[in-house]
């Protein structure tokens, strides 16, 4: 993992002290709320319905056990004993007091964490593959490049007041676990025929009220030119992105209006003007950053673990966990273990302080000191020996964390919605709970197979509803909560924005409607088809008929 150097430490300490001063001035009345609000937002502090919310950056979804324990301690000391992992690999605390925030930021700084770049119109925390450094699929370690972008973008003077917030995703595997095509910039590392590493650069994707799957503006950007090229994109956006209309201020609107080709042309022209060597990272610095992500101390093991095979044969629950939550690792004898934060009936993405401590201990003992957060609001132990999976499973089970439902119908993304969020129109969490409970029977969920349900409580789309295989959007219709269903979205490499199924449904009909959609899928599916594949073959009609025949 990356470790702070003296500059990082001094920078975070300065910002923490600065914010403590700003809080003191706000409390004394020296500055007004209008003056204070943008300052607190730059430090990840929002005011929500019941309290302040502090969003802490988890850089590209990587956590050490020490960091996770500190988050648990903060949850215990300053919140109500839990935290909420978000759809951008961050964690937020929902019951924070303004007066406590300087102390919390100090405690975060002690473990090389902060809440910068989690709010405001700047380049936000980078999203990356939670399986980085562990999957055999990747051509390079995307964390190296994510860290490079983090250092370059942190309080970048030119890009701290963009027309709107700006989100970047980096992945290096063909299977996209970052929603790269739905980011302001998506970077996909690939190796060219000549063996050279480059980025496919996607720009202008996004969700919100105007969803776009981002177009590719460059097929192969040599990796060494990453920062100057990003600078060129940001400059074109900073210059021409709209500041007069907040609904049209994201880069996706600019790219869509200019067209991908013209946007790319302007970026290339800007890039030509830039003194590239002064911006791009010197090889020595890249090597220094890369050094932090060296291959961990794997031991030589046989590819198959007899102990694990025997344990699976003896325990069907472990076998189910292995089928759904345990994934191949690049190193023989190791596995990637997903920890679901989606136990049916619980709040998607929530973890108690005790659960965080358990995962931190497991990370330390069994995963070479590494823990990851996924944008689907789950956790990952990236480097577990197959020999240890049964022990990890037992510990997770004791902590209520062994739900074997990764990518299944009950592994639902949901934003906090109207239960917490000041922007929401409708609840999202109770809808997720209803659906997950309906499919709580593990055999049924497994029979259905991969099915990604994503729920947002408003059009800002933090719950990624546009790209759910089944998307659910809460709307306020003449003063009542209604839920609009979309089908056929995908956030993966086959990214697509879902299509609206029909008129909105009241809250108490949503879980039933999902059940009906699933029934249609089970009836129509052909060999090996996922829900999404069946939908793509049949179109909306059979699904629509099932839901609305009943609804009338």
């Amino acid at each position: 993992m990356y470790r702070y150097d003296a500059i990082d430490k001094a920078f975070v300490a300065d910002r923490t002290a600065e914010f403590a001063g700003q809080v003191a001035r706000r409390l004394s009345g020296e500055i007004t709320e209008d003056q204070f609000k943008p300052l607190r937002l730059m430090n990840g502090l929002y005011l929500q319905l019941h309290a302040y919310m502090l969003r802490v950056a988890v850089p590209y979804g990587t956590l050490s056990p020490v960091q996770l324990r500190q988050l648990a301690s903060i949850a215990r000391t300053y919140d109500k004993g839990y935290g909420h992992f978000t759809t951008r690999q961050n964690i937020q605390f929902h019951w924070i007091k303004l007066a406590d925030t300087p102390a919390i930021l100090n405690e975060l700084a002690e473990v090389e964490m902060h809440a910068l770049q989690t709010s405001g119109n700047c380049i936000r925390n980078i999203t990356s593959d939670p399986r980085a450094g562990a999957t055999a699929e990747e051509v390079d370690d995307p964390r190296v490049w994510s860290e490079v972008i983090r250092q370059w973008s942190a309080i970048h003077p030119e890009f701290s007041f963009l027309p709107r917030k700006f989100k970047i995703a980096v992945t290096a595997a063909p299977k996209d676990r970052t929603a790269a095509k739905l980011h302001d910039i998506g970077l996909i590392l690939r190796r060219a025929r000549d063996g050279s590493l480059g980025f496919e650069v996607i720009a202008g994707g996004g969700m919100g009220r105007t969803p776009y799957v981002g177009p590719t503006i460059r097929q192969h950007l040599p990796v060494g030119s990453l920062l100057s090229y990003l600078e060129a994109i940001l400059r074109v956006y900073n210059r021409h992105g709209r500041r007069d209309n907040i609904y049209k201020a994201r880069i996706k609107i600019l790219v869509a209006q200019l067209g991908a080709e013209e946007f790319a042309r302007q970026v290339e022209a800007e890039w030509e003007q830039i003194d590239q060597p002064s911006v791009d990272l010197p090889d020595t610095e890249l090597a220094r950053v890369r050094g932090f992500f060296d291959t961990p101390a794997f031991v030589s093991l046989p590819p198959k673990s007899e102990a694990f095979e025997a344990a699976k044969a003896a325990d069907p629950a472990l076998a189910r966990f292995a089928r759904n939550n345990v994934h191949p690792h690049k190193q023989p004898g190791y596995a990637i273990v997903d920890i679901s934060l989606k136990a049916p009936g619980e709040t998607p993405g929530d973890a108690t302080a005790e659960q965080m401590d358990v995962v931190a201990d497991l990370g330390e003992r069994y995963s070479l000191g590494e823990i990851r957060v996924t944008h689907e609001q789950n956790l990952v132990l990236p480097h577990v020996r197959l020999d240890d999976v049964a022990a990890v499973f037992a510990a997770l089970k004791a902590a209520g964390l062994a739900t074997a439902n990764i990518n299944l119908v009950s592994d639902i993304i949901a934003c906090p919605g109207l239960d917490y969020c000041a922007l929401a129109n409708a609840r999202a969490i109770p809808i997720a709970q209803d659906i997950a409970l309906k499919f709580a029977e593990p055999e049924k969920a497994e029979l259905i197979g991969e099915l990604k349900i994503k729920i947002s409580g408003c059009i800002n789309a933090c719950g990624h509803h546009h790209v759910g295989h089944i998307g659910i959007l809460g709307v306020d219709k003449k003063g009542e909560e209604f839920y609009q269903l979309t089908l056929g979205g995908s956030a993966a490499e086959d990214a697509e924005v879902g299509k609206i199924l029909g008129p909105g449904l009241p809250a108490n009909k949503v879980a039933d409607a999902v059940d009906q959609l699933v029934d249609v899928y089970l009836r129509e599916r052909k060999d090996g088809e996922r829900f999404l594949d069946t939908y793509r073959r049949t179109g909306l009609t059979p699904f629509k008929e099932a839901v609305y025949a009943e609804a009338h």
Partner: protein
Amino acid sequence: MKALTANRLLDGEVVFWNAGDWKTRFGEAQLFEGEEAAQAAVAEANQPTVIVEPYLIDVAAEEGGFAPVAFRERIRALGPQNHPQHGKQAEGGHDIEVIQHAHGVARSAGRHNLIKLKK
């Protein structure tokens, strides 16, 4: 009928105005019959070092008492539904029960001039 609400500056706690004081329970909120009295309270309650963003909410008579009309405001007065042990609902009491059993929902009338856009 209207009530005046805000979040307390220091900790974000939901508070309700009552004759010169901010109360934490909706049951203790002062209810205003007329627009004039409500606006007078808004002017008086402008205490920027005590609270943030004061605004008026619609309140209606419900069985056994009163409740905010807007669903959003009911959640503010109660707490999040996914954690019944969190927020004001955890304390229980008659005023809480009235809101929990209130009928009818009209969220859009809840908060005036609210810009629902992420910042």
